[in-house]
């Protein structure tokens, strides 16, 4: 493991939350996953108090796509499972369920995270954007429009995650180079072979945003 993660709580036991952080970091180290790293960083920034929750379902409130949703979840439930299950936001896909493929990418406060590798109860009040929340009032985000125009999708299963990572990239770097785009999507696995068209699409979307 590249970074040291303290996985033990004050009584020397490994908590589920810190364990998940640790495994997330290991997966990132192995596969160089930007999204997984981001999720670890975000999770580490969360310093919730020693509140005991579970193992039965407990109420949590999530801010998803501008709406506030309160639901009952078991503490073991990942964000991906909550989005796809009770919230019926099935645009978020689960391809590997361990932070290796990035199909489950959503944005937390605008930063891409692997939603399969963060527990729903750890999200707190951070704003979640899923693929369903990217278009505004029926107007596609420039990245979405460019994906269609440049045929940057085939089967479409990895598409939501890719679109969100690329949209986040343009917030961070409005005029990315080809290398920066490749770096931003390097954790996303696609078996159909869309990477070349994704790079084209993001370059075009950046240009479209410049106007």
């Amino acid at each position, binding site marked *: 493991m590249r970074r040291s993660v303290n996985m033990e709580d004050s009584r020397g036991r490994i908590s589920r939350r810190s364990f998940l952080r640790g495994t997330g970091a290991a*997966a990132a180290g*192995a*596969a160089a996953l930007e999204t997984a790293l981001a999720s670890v960083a975000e999770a580490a920034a969360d310093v919730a108090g020693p509140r005991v929750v579970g193992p039965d379902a407990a109420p949590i409130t999530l801010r998803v796509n501008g709406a506030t949703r309160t639901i009952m979840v078991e503490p073991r439930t990942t964000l991906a499972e909550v989005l*796809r299950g009770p919230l*019926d*936001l*099935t*645009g*978020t*896909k*689960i*391809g*590997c*369920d*361990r932070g*290796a*493929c990035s*199909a489950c990418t959503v944005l937390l406060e605008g930063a891409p995270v692997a939603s399969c590798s963060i527990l729903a109860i750890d999200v707190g009040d951070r704003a979640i954007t*899923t*693929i*369903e929340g*990217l*278009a505004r009032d029926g107007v*596609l985000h420039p990245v*979405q429009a460019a*994906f*269609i*125009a*440049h*045929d940057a*999708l*085939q*089967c*479409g*299963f*990895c*598409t*939501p995650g890719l*679109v969100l990572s690329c949209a986040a990239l343009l917030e961070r770097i409005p005029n990315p180079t080809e290398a920066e*785009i*490749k*770096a931003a*999507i*390097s*954790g*996303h*696995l*696609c*078996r*159909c*072979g*869309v*990477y*070349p*068209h*994704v*790079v084209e699409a993001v370059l075009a979307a950046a240009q479209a945003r410049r106007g």
Partner: protein
Amino acid sequence: MAAQPQDSLRRELLPSGIAGVSLAQVERTVAADEAPPLAPNADLTLIGKSAPRWNGREKVTGAVRFTTDIALPRMLHARLLRAPLPHARIRAIDTSAAERHPGVCAVHVILGPRGGGTASVSADEDMEATRRVEEPVALYAGMAVAAVAAVSPEAAEQGVRLIKVDWQPLPFVVDMDDARAAGAPVVFEKLHVQAGFGASGLVTAGLPLNGNVRGPATDARGDAAAGFAAADVVVEGEYRTQVQSHCCMEPHGIVADWRADGLTVYMSTQYTAGVREELARSFGLPLNRVRVIVDAMGGGFGSKSTLGYYGLAAVALSRQAGAPVRLVLDRHEEQVDSGYRPATWQRLRIGARRDGSLNAISLLSYGSAGTALGAGVGNVASRLYTCANYEEAHYDVFINAGPGCAMRAPGAVPGAFALEQAIDELAEKLGMDPIALRDRIDASPARREERRIGAERIGWNLRHAAGAETGPIKTGLGMAQSLWGANVQINSACEVRVLRDGSVEVRSSVQDIGTGTGTVLAQVVAEELGLRPEDVAVRIGDTDFPAGPGSGGSRATASITPPARNAAYQVCRQLCALAAPILGVEADDLEARGGRIVSRSDPARAMAFRDAAAKMRTEQFAVLASRADDYAGFRARMGDAAAARNDLGGVHFAAVTVDTESGLVRLERVVAAHDCGRPMNPAQIESQVHGGVLQGLGYALLEERVLDRQTGHVVNADLERYKLPGAHEAPQIDVLLIENYQGFSATDAYGVAEPATIPTAPAIANAIYNAIGVRLRALPMNRAAILAALAAGRT
């Protein structure tokens, strides 16, 4: 289709030849109800243009529903118990504790003394399942033993853990070489084989089984021995290819809903109509009580063509529980037990004369698809080049691993890896350029043109001699070729429907697995009706519509676009008949274009398409058309499957850099020149070729499923240690398409999926040889392999 009476036939002139090179016309006899000849793409409005993907908006907004997204009321969740040992007999299985779990609703034993509930299995690829019923033996680690349906995924998992199995371990073998040795543990004591389609090609019945080795399956023409005796030059080499996993991003999955009035199945499948037939047969239902639906499909690549063990289990559970059941494999299961491209070993020998003409080819091959059959190396060695004397012998080797199955260009991919390196080796021995040699021995005009334009694009004239560069980082150029049958499924139907408001639907059970079949259907229908693609509602992926082809064998476009066009043409004639009296012209004088029905002789006489539709006597009318035979007949035909007289080609050029100190190979650039008859949608074809190249890149440099010889388990059953190409590995890919008209059908369109991945790995291998002067004959050509080859010196 029955033979046509003479008076229902007519003669037509159709475009024929390569656009810009040899375009001419060919006369064909066609049936009277066929649409008139379609002009070359340059003269068309929509066909041959890059219309945006029909469901692009749904896919970029997350609205489209994959099988894994289906949630039905009262739906149960299923999990599978899998064998923990690579070879073991079940002495007893006890499911009582699982059945008592409060959340568990149904338990289905697939493999065990109580396994009578398993339906008979028909597909050849599922041969291993036949044995499950006869004898409760697990043949590989991870083989499905039982299935549990429960109110939640967690309860199903708990139920699985409560099943007790008394295992008697048996000796096992997971290495193909070990399995061939005398005294190796035997996977199948006896075997009953029905002829059919195996993992990589046709399987014949009646071949001898000797230990784990079944065969030989042989093919021959001419006299190979005499050919070699008369040869001036002979090359011979041994080639080895690894197991490649499909790695569909959407795992295999099904939601089965068994009801008293029939069975509805949502399935991630490449072949809705085929799965419906399997379900009807397996569960004794008439076809009209079975419905299979797939809206979007997250990758198949050959592995999702049949119902499968998990599909059977889910339906059985739904019947038992009286509720819908969702069964989706997790990533580990996906990598262990959803098929793969079989491993192969080949010894290939080629004899030639000084002028390059081939005298003889001899191919000996062994392949292992685990517990499945048909791990052959295709027919590229037999058919790609002109050679009068040919012989081959192939053996299947059983090991205790999950069954392999068809994967994008089954057989041809490992076959081309050997053949195309051997041809390059021959060229070097003859002192010929690899392209010049192929110009001499390859009869295909399409590939000749592809070699020409590809060589020009990649800068072939700058290619240096093998290993000629000094310094640690070396560059190399290589090329290789593709051959794949232009497959057609005769049993392919399509309906075009017009409603009174002028809106149009195209309906077929054909599914869009990401190739863009729906887009192409909308283009074809809109072209014929003078509308825009977005005016045509695409209703596909549902067996309530006329049965369409499977999306496999590069056959979907070739099979479904001709009936779509013919149906649209008939619809158009009927609308013109309605418009004719209103416009005061003959119906034959009318055509549809620009959203209107227009008189050819007097374009001022016209009416809107929707106004013509408003004259319909009923709210809608529809025309159903099915795939006619190719106008020139077929090269081969077996049941519903046929092969057009012309094959599909394709030539790849690869530019690599090799770091001889680290062994790292970078694929810098690929030029992929392809033909697919009439190209229907260049952007979608380009996308598909990108996929072929990237899968070929993974096969060449990165991917390998690894079985542990000590435990028999898959070591890298995940996406971390099974290395797929990512954005950083993707090279610049230039796709060059030629329009290769044949005058074969109403659209003259054929597929591209498989030709696009066949030549990538050998092109890379030839480029690596050009860079370092050492030939690698085993896959994957990863860092360790490169360094070992360099250390071993020139071969």
